[in-house]
């Protein structure tokens, strides 16, 4: 069996091109083609992770050695993220049939598959411009998925799409300007090559290019002043798309940002920016969520806050903080996907996003309510759930690195987070339900949510399994910056 990271991108592209034709055979085909391909990716990424933990798997595109050709580099970190992406993708795939309405279904599955492939490419590529291309694939697929919504949500979906598109395209222009500046002083695009040439290049150009690239990628990573699109997009998107945004798009975007700062620039200034804006993002996000009455918007702000936490952890730039940050990243990807899914089930049966309508849902939709609660508890960082471990590690890492203020701010933000999540959870469980009939979520969607919940719980009670991967993964990022 050839374990080649390119297959994780090439095969989905091939199948995506095949899907429009396959509809002529059978209407159901696109769904299963897409699902099968994602499953293939999932299996491949598992094998890839296994191989990458022993030694990085490198693939030269077209047989050209870097820096002349494009290279795909699957270290422990990239392989782990690829696995994360395929896992979230397949689970959302199981979940989604009843949550998308209207339109040509095959278009949805094509876009969905391409989004998965694009995000996988983002985490595996070793070439800066190729990163840009995959960022664009992911971004445009996200725009399209966002615009896919039909029916009564269409109005909001279109508004969200146009906002996201304008900000997203502006940011990608900045990303490209940054790449152009870097190319002008180094003459290369390969990441490893860039990092070896940057110390000899003009520091001012390098600094300015870094600012452009941070601005460009910070948009996808939901960094504070750049994340205006986030709440609108999450609110306007259909539920599976929100889940995919939180679980895949933002994670890949953030990874690109971290990769650029750590592996290319290896710059302490970059880390400082991440630290400062990460903590601001955290506090702004959590505070903005506090007063929300719209369930999905609340989750969106919470997502901003969590990304802030992850960015902060990365900004500290120690082995421990990276492990904590990656743990938070995994936890957030799974738990927030779970939350968006179960929130979607609530909203579908209630017909409104208003939190006030959730009264007593614990009695009407017990399973879904439990799943929502598990996700919420994990995000809050309560024991037995993944968030708890990540919080402890991050706090310890920040104290260890001497950032006591940061630790205090993170914990204060966690308390805010606790407040708004508990308000919802208590509403679900402690209020008396209304009279209206509710539609139960389908078995398939419940199963996929259960898998996510199980992952989150395993992360909480058996963290060693994850540390075994995260240790080398963090080491991979740190290698460039000099160990720390």
């Amino acid at each position: 069996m050839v374990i080649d990271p390119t297959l994780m991108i090439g095969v989905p592209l091939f199948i995506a091109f095949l899907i429009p034709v396959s509809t002529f055979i059978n209407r159901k085909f696109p769904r299963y083609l897409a699902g099968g391909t994602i499953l293939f990716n999932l299996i491949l990424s598992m094998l890839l992770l296994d191989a990458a933990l022993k030694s990085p798997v490198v693939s030269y595109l077209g047989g050209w050695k870097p820096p002349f050709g494009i290279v795909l580099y699957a270290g422990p970190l990239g392989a782990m993220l690829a696995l994360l992406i395929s896992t979230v993708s397949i689970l959302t795939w199981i979940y989604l049939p009843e949550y998308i309405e209207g339109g040509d279904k095959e278009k949805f599955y094509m876009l969905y598959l391409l989004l998965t492939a694009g995000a996988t490419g983002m985490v595996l590529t070793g070439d800066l411009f190729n990163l840009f291309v995959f960022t664009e694939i992911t971004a445009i697929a996200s725009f399209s998925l966002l615009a896919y919504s039909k029916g009564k949500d269409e109005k909001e979906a279109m508004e969200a799409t146009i906002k996201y598109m304008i900000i997203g395209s502006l940011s990608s222009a900045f990303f490209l300007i940054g790449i152009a500046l870097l190319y002008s002083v180094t003459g290369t695009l390969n990441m490893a090559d860039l990092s070896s040439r940057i110390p000899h290049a003009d520091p001012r150009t390098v600094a300015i290019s870094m600012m452009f690239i941070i601005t460009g990628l910070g948009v996808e990573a939901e960094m504070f002043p750049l994340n205006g699109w986030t709440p609108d997009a999450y609110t306007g998107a259909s539920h599976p798309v929100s889940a995919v945004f939180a679980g895949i798009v933002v994670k890949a975007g953030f990874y690109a940002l971290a990769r650029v700062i750590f592996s290319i620039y290896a710059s302490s200034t970059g880390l400082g920016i991440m630290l400062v804006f990460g903590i601001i993002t955290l506090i702004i996000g959590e505070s903005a969520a506090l007063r929300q009455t719209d369930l999905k918007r609340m989750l969106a702000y919470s997502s901003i806050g969590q990304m802030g936490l992850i960015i902060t952890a990365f900004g500290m730039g120690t082995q421990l903080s990276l492990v904590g940050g990656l743990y938070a990243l995994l936890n957030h990807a799974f738990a927030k996907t779970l939350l968006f899914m179960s929130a979607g089930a609530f909203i579908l049966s209630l017909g409104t996003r208003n939190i006030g309508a959730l009264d007593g849902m614990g009695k009407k939709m017990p399973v879904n309510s439990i799943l929502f609660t598990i996700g919420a508890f994990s995000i809050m960082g309560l024991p037995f759930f993944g968030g708890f471990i990540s919080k402890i590690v991050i706090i310890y890492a920040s104290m260890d690195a001497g950032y006591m203020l940061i630790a205090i701010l993170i914990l204060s933000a966690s308390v805010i987070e606790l407040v708004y999540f508990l308000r919802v959870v208590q509403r679900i469980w402690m209020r008396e339900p209304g009279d209206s009939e509710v539609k139960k979520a389908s078995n398939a969607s419940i199963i996929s949510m259960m898998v996510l919940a199980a992952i989150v719980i395993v992360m909480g009670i058996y963290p060693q399994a994850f540390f075994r991967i995260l240790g080398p993964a963090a080491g991979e990022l740190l290698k460039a910056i000099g160990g720390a």
Partner: protein
Amino acid sequence: MMFYFASAALIAIGIYMLMVKKNLIKMILGLSVIDSGVNLLLISIGYINGKTAPIIQPGVSPSNVVDPLPQALVLTNIVIGVSVTALALSVVIRVYKHYKTLNSSEVRDLKW
């Protein structure tokens, strides 16, 4: 040098359109203008004084051509720009259908 200036100016004009113009179509045009500016920037970076297009044929020696890589990047970016513009315009059509306006500050059902 002119080209650097022109590309910087194009980028500036595009961003200015985004920041000042409220019409969504003008904003998308702004994005297009930014894209052109970036493309010009890339091409100018690859330009080498007195050299010709990177197509090797009788009369053109390798020592006499400009850097082909930025041109390849521009090719990619043009396509990306086209895609974004097409998609954005079709979304704007739908936005207009629902909001009956193209004013960006009136398209704000989602806020806070």
